[in-house]
């Protein structure tokens, strides 16, 4: 190992200053003694999606810390520690691909934990294929990620087309009088537009009349959007967007004195900023979550969903949302697959291929819920098991309100006038 390292470094520094880049490659001496399982995290630690990116990293890290407390992953009776390395995707697909290649080539990782966004995921997939490195994604909700049947990529969260559409029906069936119409708007950016399209396509199965569908640019003033909705006056307003847009949306609706009977958003309302910044105005807004601390699942490492919530809160100082939970559960999938594969590290190319096969055959229950990956169709390698839960903000807290078996509180419908 040591001689290989020095030769590589020698060549690099001699190669016209490009060698100055070997920053990432130093300090890899001690590997030979105790084999570890090397995991790379490629996610947006900077750039426009750094918040989501850092959430994913928290989720992955929490699993690594917990499993290492036990001595590592158990393979054939021996425990092997997990070693994490990180690559910043800068919210940019090209940087994501670079980061993945660096982790695989220079850090020699055995498995990658996937990016926050779908765009970066799509750019990293081919790199994983090239080096036969499995990638488990605890985020990336666009259905596009799975359409091309990525052989080495596995997704923990059901694609958004599966979750946002269904939720409209759930809401419609849970309240009375039954709402009759829905107006859908969304930000024209990845994920948000998929969410909005999911809402749009879910209107018909939910027997709701679609009064309008419109995508708007992320930086636009939302006042015209609200103005238009107000004139169409649907019972439910469904918005696809991240928290910032959602906050602006609620502010604009209030400033124009517009209050629909129900406001549904998807991801973002569970982010602490939403309730913090809007205060009382956040109350009543509904969202969709694929996991809440109240779900009735558990596993050996984290215990119940509620235990996970406590652990995560103690570690990071805020309550986890479903992205963090799915990321932590990604580690559980790796743990299970590695044990079933049964080969001790270090792993070579064919071991990693075997690992991918093992992951494909996953069928476990975790605190996050059941995990099993599709092996055919448009959601190839996507875990479609989790059932979306409708949540509503009540007194600044996120409370599951539907469907009935997951509900912890009563659904407020129709919304009262603005205070």
């Amino acid at each position, binding site marked *: 190992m040591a001689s290989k390292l020095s030769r590589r470094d020698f060549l690099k520094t001699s190669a016209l200053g490009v060698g100055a880049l070997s920053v990432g490659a130093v300090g890899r001496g001690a590997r030979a003694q105790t084999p570890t399982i090397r995991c790379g995290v490629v996610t947006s630690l*900077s750039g426009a999606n750094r918040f989501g990116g850092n959430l994913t990293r928290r989720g992955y890290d929490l699993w690594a810390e917990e499993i290492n407390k036990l001595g590592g992953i158990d393979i054939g009776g021996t425990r092997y520690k997990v070693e994490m390395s990180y690559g910043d995707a800068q919210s940019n697909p090209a940087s994501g691909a670079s980061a993945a290649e660096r982790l695989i080539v*220079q850090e020699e990782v055995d498995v990658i934990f996937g990016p926050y966004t779908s765009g970066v995921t*799509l750019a990293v997939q*081919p790199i994983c*294929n090239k080096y036969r490195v499995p990638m488990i994604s605890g985020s990336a909700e666009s259905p596009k990620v799975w359409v091309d049947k990525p052989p080495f990529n596995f997704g923990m969260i059901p694609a958004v087309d599966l979750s946002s559409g269904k939720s409209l029906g759930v809401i419609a069936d849970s309240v009375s009088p039954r709402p009759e119409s829905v107006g859908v708007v969304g930000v024209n950016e990845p994920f948000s537009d998929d969410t909005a399209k999911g809402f749009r396509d879910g209107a018909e199965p939910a027997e709701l009349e679609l009064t309008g569908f419109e995508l708007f640019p992320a930086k636009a003033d939302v006042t015209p959007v609200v103005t238009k909705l107000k004139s169409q006056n649907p019972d439910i307003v469904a918005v696809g967007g991240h928290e910032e847009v959602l906050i602006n949306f609620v502010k604009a609706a209030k400033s124009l004195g517009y209050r629909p009977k129900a406001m549904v958003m998807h991801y973002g309302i569970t982010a602490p900023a939403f309730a913090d910044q809007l205060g009382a105005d956040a109350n009543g807004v509904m969202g969709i979550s694929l996991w809440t601390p109240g779900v009735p699942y558990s596993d050996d490492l984290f215990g119940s969903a509620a235990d996970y919530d406590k652990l995560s809160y103690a570690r990071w100082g805020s309550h986890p949302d479903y992205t963090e939970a799915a990321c932590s559960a990604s580690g559980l999938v790796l743990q299970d697959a590695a044990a079933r594969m049964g080969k001790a590290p270090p792993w070579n190319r064919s071991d990693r291929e075997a690992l991918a096969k093992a992951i494909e055959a996953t069928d476990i229950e975790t605190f996050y819920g059941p995990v099993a990956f599709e092996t055919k169709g448009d959601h190839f390698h996507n875990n479609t098991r989790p059932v979306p839960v409708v949540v509503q903000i009540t007194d600044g807290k996120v409370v599951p309100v539907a469907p009935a078996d997951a509900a912890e509180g009563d659904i407020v419908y129709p919304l009262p006038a603005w205070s």
Partner: protein
Amino acid sequence: MGLTRWLAGVIVVAVLAALPLGLDAYSLRIATGVCMWAGLACAWNIVGGYAGYISFGHSAFFGIGAYATALLMQRGMDWPFFATLPVGLVVAAGVAAVIGAPTMRLRGSYFAIATWAFAEMLLQLVNVLDVTGGPGGLSVPPYLNEHFFYYLMLAAAVIAYLAVWVLVERSRFGFRLRALRDHEPAAEALGIRTTLVKVQAFALSAGIAAVFGGIYAYWVTFIDPMSVMGGEITDQMVVMVLLGGLGTVWGPALGASLLWLTNRMVWSALGDTAIYLPILGVIIVAVVLFLPNGLVSLLPGLGQLRRRGHRLLTGMVRKL
């Protein structure tokens, strides 16, 4: 003069061509990025440096190239990669010619605004259209051979620099360009058809940028509006050329190499590149204030050195 120049050029290219022998896939990826940015800076320099028209819209042409390649390689179209590059080139050059003819009548600052508005408009357009995949972007069938992409980017960059060297430094075209940059009315008074020359330069520049966009799309395998048409692509080109030396042949290559290597080092060392943007800003301000001719102007000894080397060399050749 020619002999030493050629020899130096051959040595540089030979070293660059040998680079993959000593680099792993990741380092090679960075070297590929250096070639790409050097080529883009070179393209921008044709208009910004030689013609003296600052374009804030070059990301549009990079994006046109990227989208041309990605779209033609989608399932159903299935074009071979190399056939897509000329398409991107021609489309970008054509668009540049069409928008250039009217915009380049405008004086400098207006031109800058017009190109910027054009690029933002195009960014909005690809965001809205279905055929471009909207904000979700497009995947390109992957071909994962790091040597292929390195040599391709290198070849494209070498061709771009040769083209600039031949066309701009060594031919009438370059004289026309530099003349109109320094004094447009005087150039007109010497019979130079400045509007036409500017449009030619703009189209050439756009075409080169588009070729790099096409290679980028195939290399990264995934593009979306922000990653190939975002304003930061233009920002980088402008800064690289300003830093290296506006209107010089090798300045853009110098600026691009330095900045891109710095960018990647900051990135892998700090794991966060937020600090990179303010640094870019400071570099621009500092260059404008203190080093308007860029880093190449710091090498006044270069010409002397070259002359001496040339004398030595021709002497040796004569002896042989």
